[in-house]
Structure formats: structure tokens, C-alpha cells
């Protein structure tokens, strides 16, 4: 009677094949679905066909490559979205800072033409107000971006924690199923791989598969995010070096929140946000601040040397946001530092932030410019002061310093935010030099001359500094756009490769349906033939 059982095994196999094809067709557009193929084998002693199982077409090597490529594209895409906002801000040449600085100097030139004319004096106040307001508005645009970015970091961390939790849960289920049935359901595996793909778009991670079938997921520095059924949380926290800056913290097994380096996160949305902040947003704010400080200090120095319409010495024309210093929260010493601009060395002012580290053995301070890595060593002078990069740092009590204490100095980060014209009375503009007189325009001419002097970093005029800021942001945006394009096409190619392996082709499934139909009919014929043969035997008289 084996002909019936052979035929039956064939019918079973054919309907299993139908199921597989139908499942493939119905999931053709399901994200994360991997094409399934029926695994058939001959039964021993020519007893028919056996359905061994349904295999999903999944190549973990390609999946990893694709995830890593997507991680990079997603970082660049995030970076590009952010940097384009600054790029667009600088796009309008008529309302940027350059024409406003220009208008200010034009009004000073008018003042030089008629130094006692109240209208000319009022003109200078007007253009000074507009210019300083534009500096502040530019800076507040950037600082709004910075606080928006902090919010996004918080969102990303929440999403990463959720995804990691789901992966840990699936790890447990898959291990359990594997222990029970020897093989885990394809749908659970697809689901987990899809979550890993999602996670990769948020942050760059490394995946390793355990013998139990669990995925272990870790960051670039080796710290685990998911280990079997256990998941570790990320959280945002203020940086130890600079409390105004949001860092990513890692909650370790003991429950302590440990600050992670920004450089750990190079990929995914999270990596893109952090890279943008460190590479473009903060440097742009610093450069804007540097321009504001150079402008204010340059004008103030000349203005203070002059005499106003009342015959009094001119004062400062602009106020400016003062430099900041933060003591590292991990310092063991209790010394506090104060920082101020050093007008005598104004040309040394840079757009960099500085890390100042105390070395007890030598009694020196190691000063590192953070953006360039440039190192200098300095000792306190008689009045407990350090002078570098156009600022002066004062230590309140050097005996309170402990070896390894660190401080971060930000000379120009918030300078533009405090940039303001403080002269409201037209008579207080010092157009005259010290010899005085209502028709004396000597100081106005000196102010006008500042326009073309190299006062920013000692090498660039105000306008050149602004042009270089525009060029920098343009370049940065341009580079990110080009890299994104290249990375995107790499991702696309890998997606195509992954799809050629794991994707469903409807034509192929249509052909399979026809094939399996014939397969079914043929097996039915086998049974019919068996029955005919049996009938023939039973019909013998």
C-alpha cells in the first residue's frame, strides 16, 4: 500500500509548498520579512517525500553590513538636516551680518562727514542697535538649535532603551523556543532582526550571536547594551566638564550612571546629532562669539580714547557676553577659577574652548585647545593668573588645587548673546579726539578705519571673519551632503543585495504556484493510479 502513502506524502508536501508561496506573496511588502523556502527530502527506502521544515533566506553577514551602512547614512542624514538649517540661515546675503556691519561703518563715515550733526550721531546708534540685535538673533537661533538638539538626544535615548528592551525580550523567547522545539519560529527571528536594523539607524552597535541563539549587542567601546535577556539603560546627563552640555550616560550593572564619550557614538541618529553639535554647532557659535568680541573690543578701545560732544571721555560702545569657566564635577580640589577677556592680548582670542589641567608635581597647568588639540604649559603669575588665548584666568586660592583638577574655559561661546549697544544718547558718541571740538572728527575717522583692520584673531578683518564663517558652514554642509550621497548609494546597493537574497519576487511566486499546482495534481494522479491498480486487483475473479 506504499503507493498511497507515497502519494499522500507528495500531496502534503505540495500543500506545504502552497502555504509557503502564499505566505511569501502575502508578506511581499512586510518590512523585515525574509523570503521562506520549503525544505524537502526523500524519505528513506523510497517511501515518498518529507517536509523537513521552512527555511528563511537570511544572510547574517549581509544584514550586518547593511545595518552598519544604514547606521552611517542615518548619522549623515541627521547631520545634514541640522547643518542645512544654518546653511539656510546664511543663505540670505541681504540680511546677514556682513551688510549690517557695513551699514554700521557707513554711518560712522557719515559721522566723520558731519561730526556735530545729531542725525549722523543718531544714525550710528541706530546701526549699532541693529547690528548687535542681529548678532543676538543669530546666536539665539543657534542656541535654540542646541536646546532642540538636547531634546532630540533625550528622545533617541528613550527609543534606544525601548528597542533594546524588546530585543532582550525576544532573546529570551527565542532561546526558550529553541530549547523546546530545536528551532525558533521564523517570525520571531525576523522580528528581532528588524529591531536590530531599527536600532542601527539610531546608534552604531555591534551584534554577536551566541550558541543559545541570543543576540549580544554592544557599543563601540565594548559596553553591552543587550546581553541575552538583560538590557542596560542609557540616560542623558550633564557633562562633568561642562554642565551646560548634555552627555549620554550608561547605567552599569551596579546602577551607577557613567558618562560616555561622544566619540563612542559615531553612527545612527544619535551619532549624527552629537557629531553635528561638536563639529559644527558649537564651533559656529564660538566663531560668531569671537567676531562679536573682536568687534566690541576693537570699537570700544578706539571709542574710549575719544571725546564726546559734552567734552567727556568716550566710554564703551558695546557690551559683550563674558567668557565662562567650569570646574569639572569630578575635581577633588575646591579651587574656583574666574575668567575675563584680556584686552591687551585681544588679537590672540580664538574660537576654541580650552581644557585646563593642574599638574601638582610641576605646579604647572596643561592647557589644551579642545578643537585643535594644541597643548601649552603655563604657570601662575604673581597674581595667581594664567594668560592664554586672549583671556586671563584667575585662581582664587592655589593651595586648594589638587593634582589632576580640570577646568573648561569657553572664551566666546555666549559672547554674541550678550552683544549690545550701550550708548543711547547721541551726544555720548566720541567722534572727536582728545583735543575736542564739535567739528572734530578724528576719532570717527579712527573708528571708520577699524573696518579694514585685521582685528579678528590678529589675521582677519570683521568682514573676512564673517566670510570665513559662511565658507566654513558652506563647506561643512557641502561635505556632509556629498558623503551622504555616497553613503546612501552604498546603503541602496546593500539593500538590493539583501533583497536579492531575502526579498520576495512575485513573478517567481506566481511560477511556483503553477508548479505546485501541477505537483499536487501529479500526486493526486499517483493516488488515483494506485486506486485503479487496486480496483483491478480487487476486480479479478
Amino acid at each position: 500500500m506504499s503507493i498511497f502513502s507515497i502519494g499522500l506524502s507528495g500531496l502534503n508536501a505540495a500543500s506545504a509548498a502552497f502555504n509557503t508561496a502564499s505566505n511569501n506573496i502575502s508578506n511581499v511588502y512586510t518590512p523585515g520579512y525574509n523570503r521562506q523556502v520549503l525544505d524537502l527530502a526523500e524519505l528513506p527506502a523510497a517511501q515518498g517525500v518529507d517536509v523537513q521544515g521552512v527555511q528563511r533566506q537570511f544572510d547574517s553577514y549581509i544584514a550586518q553590513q547593511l545595518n552598519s551602512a544604514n547606521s552611517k547614512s542615518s548619522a549623515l542624514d541627521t547631520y545634514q538636516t541640522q547643518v542645512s538649517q544654518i546653511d539656510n540661515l546664511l543663505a540670505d546675503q541681504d540680511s546677514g551680518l556682513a551688510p549690517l556691519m557695513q551699514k554700521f561703518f557707513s554711518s560712522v563715515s557719515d559721522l566723520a562727514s558731519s561730526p556735530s550733526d545729531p542725525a549722523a550721531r543718531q544714525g550710528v546708534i541706530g546701526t549699532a542697535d541693529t547690528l548687535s540685535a542681529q548678532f543676538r538673533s543669530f546666536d539665539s537661533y543657534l542656541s535654540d538649535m542646541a536646546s532642540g538638539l538636547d531634546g532630540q538626544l533625550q528622545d533617541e535615548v528613550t527609543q534606544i532603551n525601548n528597542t533594546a528592551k524588546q530585543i532582550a525580550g525576544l532573546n529570551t523567547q527565542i532561546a526558550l523556543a529553541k530549547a523546546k522545539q530545536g528551532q525558533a519560529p521564523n517570525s520571531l527571528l525576523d522580528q528581532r532582526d528588524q529591531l536590530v536594523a531599527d536600532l542601527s539607524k539610531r546608534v552604531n552597535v555591534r551584534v554577536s550571536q551566541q550558541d543559545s541563539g541570543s543576540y549580544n549587542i554592544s557599543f563601540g567601546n565594548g559596553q553591552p547594551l543587550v546581553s541575552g535577556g538583560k538590557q542596560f539603560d542609557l540616560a542623558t546627563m550633564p557633562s562633568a566638564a561642562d554642565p551646560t552640555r548634555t552627555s549620554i550616560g550608561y547605567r552599569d550593572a551596579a546602577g551607577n550612571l557613567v558618562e560616555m564619550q561622544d566619540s563612542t557614538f559615531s553612527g545612527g541618529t544619535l551619532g549624527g546629532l552629537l557629531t553635528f553639535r561638536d563639529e559644527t554647532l558649537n564651533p559656529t557659535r564660538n566663531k560668531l562669539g569671537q567676531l562679536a568680541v573682536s568687534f566690541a573690543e576693537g570699537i570700544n578701545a578706539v571709542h574710549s580714547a575719544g571725546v564726546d560732544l559734552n567734552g567727556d571721555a568716550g566710554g564703551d560702545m558695546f557690551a559683550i557676553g563674558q567668557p565662562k569657566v567650569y570646574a569639572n564635577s569630578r575635581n577633588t580640589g575646591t579651587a574656583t577659577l574666574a575668567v575675563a577677556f584680556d584686552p591687551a592680548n585681544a588679537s590672540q582670542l580664538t574660537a576654541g574652548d580650552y581644557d585646563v589641567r593642574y599638574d601638582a608635581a610641576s605646579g604647572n597647568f596643561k592647557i589644551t585647545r579642545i578643537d585643535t588639540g594644541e597643548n601649552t604649559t603655563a604657570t601662575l603669575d604673581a597674581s595667581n593668573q594664567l594668560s592664554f588665548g586672549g583671556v586671563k584666568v584667575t585662581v582664587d586660592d592655589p593651595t586648594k588645587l589638587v593634582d589632576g583638577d580640570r577646568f573648561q574655559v569657553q572664551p566666546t561661546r555666549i559672547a554674541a548673546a550678550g552683544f549690545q549697544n550701550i550708548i543711547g544718547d547721541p551726544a555720548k558718541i566720541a567722534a572727536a579726539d582728545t583735543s575736542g571740538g564739535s567739528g572734530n572728527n578724528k576719532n570717527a575717522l579712527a573708528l571708520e578705519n577699524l573696518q579694514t583692520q585685521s582685528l579678528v584673531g590678529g589675521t582677519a578683518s570683521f568682514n573676512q571673519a564673517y566670510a570665513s564663517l559662511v565658507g566654513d558652514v558652506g563647506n561643512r554642509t557641502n561635505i556632509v551632503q556629498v558623503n551622504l550621497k555616497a553613503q546612501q548609494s552604498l546603503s541602496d546597493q546593500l539593500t538590493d543585495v539583501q533583497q536579492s537574497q531575502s526579498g520576495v519576487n512575485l513573478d517567481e511566486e506566481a511560477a511556483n504556484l503553477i508548479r505546485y499546482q501541477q505537483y499536487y495534481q501529479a500526486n493526486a494522479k499517483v493516488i488515483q493510479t494506485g486506486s485503479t491498480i487496486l480496483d483491478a486487483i480487487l476486480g479479478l475473479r
Partner: protein
Amino acid sequence: MRISTQTLYAQSMRSMNQQQADLSHVGQQIASGQRVMRPSDDPQAASRAVQVSQAQAITSQYTDSRVSARNALSMEESVLNSVGDAVTSAKTLMLEAANGTLTDADRASIASQLQGIYQTVIGQANSTDGNGRYLFGGYQDKSAPFVTDASGNVQYVGDTNTRQQQIDASRLMSVDDNGVSVFQSAQGASGFMAVAVKSDGTANAGSVTIKGPEVVDTSDPAYGTPFKIAFAVDASGSATYTIEDTTGAVLQPPQAYTSGQPVTYGGQSLTLTGTPADGDEIKVDQAKNLNPDLFKTFEKALAILKQPVDTPAKQAALQNTLGNAMTEFDNSLDNVLMVRASVGSRLNELDVVDKVASNRQLNYAQTKSDLVDLDYNTAISEYSLRSVGLQAAQKAFVSMKQMNLFDLL
């Protein structure tokens, strides 16, 4: 390679998206007329455009500055013209007054004409611009630079500065001249003048009149040094004169004086006529050291014209003073004309700089346009090319969609 159905759609979508993005970019460029719309489109060009815009703006700032410089200088030029005319008329009056047949009344009438001219010149010296700023006060432009003091003399109360303006990148131009340099700096081309006045400033008591000095020998070692001729008359009435330097040290011992005889010293020769009184002096010096002040000349001339001539001494004083005044008016006129010439040449320079600047502006505009503006020919052909690309991608999608085995079953 096996192609999944998703890939087929994804590839079509990708290519349509790309074509659409490119088309929209060119579309935006055409709409704005700019090749560089954002700094990232061409960072170098964007950054250079900022600098070229600055150069354009500075150039027009200097153009504005030249407009006000031209205003100030033109105003000064017209004032100087009037002053020149006034001084010329004053000199004509001096010639008239020097006519020996005039009576005291005639001279009084000339004095009143001269008084009118004098007032005119004071008025011109205190001219203001449209905003009430005094032209000739140096930096002190809020109050009249020339004021008449209690004794009726004109005093300068401004300062000796001149206002300058930046009229081009490297040119600082004086846009006014102060009252001293216009009205109180007659140079007289270093010529010499002789004045009959005692050391204590009072008028000579004798009736000596002066003709000259004339230069007779420029190679004389004492040529160019100031000196004075001091008269002494003894009890018998015989007169001698001594040449002394300005401090009173004797340069040439006493000699007998004869009316009408030339007196020569330091290459200068004077012809003195009339009778001196004991203690009379005649000072010989460069005109600019004696009186460079136009207003003092007016005051001096007016005083002498109003004084009745009833003694030979007064007659001599009239003649000497009118002679001096004529020389001084000449010198002042020269000075005013010289300042006017300098104003004129500054006005010319402004015109030249204007021309250069307008050429420069054209260049800047061209440079900026080359940097950021769109080449419409290229852009429009690019636009058609992209439209064709997009349409092709759309057609490909439609035909791909129809190629499906299920449709054929």
C-alpha cells in the same frame, strides 16, 4: 542577480526621486537667478561673494563721503571767491585814497565804503553751511570763529585744525580750511615791507615817508635778516640814523640822514623823504612777519582814513599806512587765491576718484555676478535635460508595473 519585487519598485522610486530633486534644484536656480543659493552650493564662491559685497559697500561708502566732501569744498570755494572780490575792491579804494588831492571828507567817504567791505569780509569769514556749522572755525564749528572784541578788533577764536574725510581707501582729504590759514596767513611771497612805527608801537612823530624797500643785492650776507632804522636828532636839528637788529644791537653805526637819499642795508634799499623826529623808527621785515592778518589791515586802513590830516606827521603816516595796506591787501589776496586753488585741485581730485570708483564698482558687480549668478543658457538646457530624465523614469515605472506574471495567468 535575483531581483525582489520590492527592489524593482524601490529602484524606480529612487530614480524618480533623484530626477525630481535635481529638476527642482535647477528650477529654484532659474526662479532666483542665482547659481549659489546657499553657501553649501559653492562654499568658496559664497565666501568670496561676502567679501566682494563688502568691497562694493565700502566703495559706495567712500562715494557718499566724497559727496559731502564736495559739498563742503564747493561751499568754501564760493565763499573764497567773494572774499577775493572784496579784497580786490578794498585795494582799489586804497589806490583812490592815496590820491594827494583828497580832502578829509573825501577820505571819510572812502572809509565808510571800506567799512562796508570790511563787514562783508567778516560775514564771509563767519559763513555757515546749511546746518549752521561755521566753515572756518577748525574743529570749533559751533560758534562764530571771528569775533569783534571790546576795542573793535577782530579776533579768531576757532582752532588751527582742518577736518579730514576718508574719501578713498587710502586717501584722507582735508575738506575745509581754518580761519587762520585763510584770513591770517598772508605770506607775501617772502617779500619785504617797511613800516614806520616806534618800538613801543606808537606812530612816528616826524614826517618821513617811505618808498621801497627794493631788493638791490640778493648776494649781500645780511640779505633776508630783519632790521630797523633808528633816527636820532640832536639839539642842533641834524639827524642821523643807525641800523639796528630787532633787539636793538647796532648793525651799522650812525650815519648822517639826508632827505631823499636811499638808505641801503642787507641788499635792500629804501628811499626816505621828509624830516624825522628823535626816536622815530622804520622796521624792515618780511611782510608775513609784520602783519599776515587781513582784518588788521582793514582796521589799520580804516583808522588812518578816519584821521584828519592836519600835520606833516599825519600826512606821512597816511601815506605810509596806505602804502603798507596796499601791499598787505595784495598779499592777502594772493593767500586767498592760493587757498582757492588748493580747494579747486581737491575738487578735481574728487572727480578723478569718482571716475576710478565707478569703474571699480562695475568690476565688483561683474565679479560678484560671475561668482554667484546663474548662467541661464546652461541652466535652461539643464532643466530640459532633467525633465526628460524624469519623464523617462516615470515611463519606465509604468511599463515595469505592467510586466507581472499574475496579469498573464
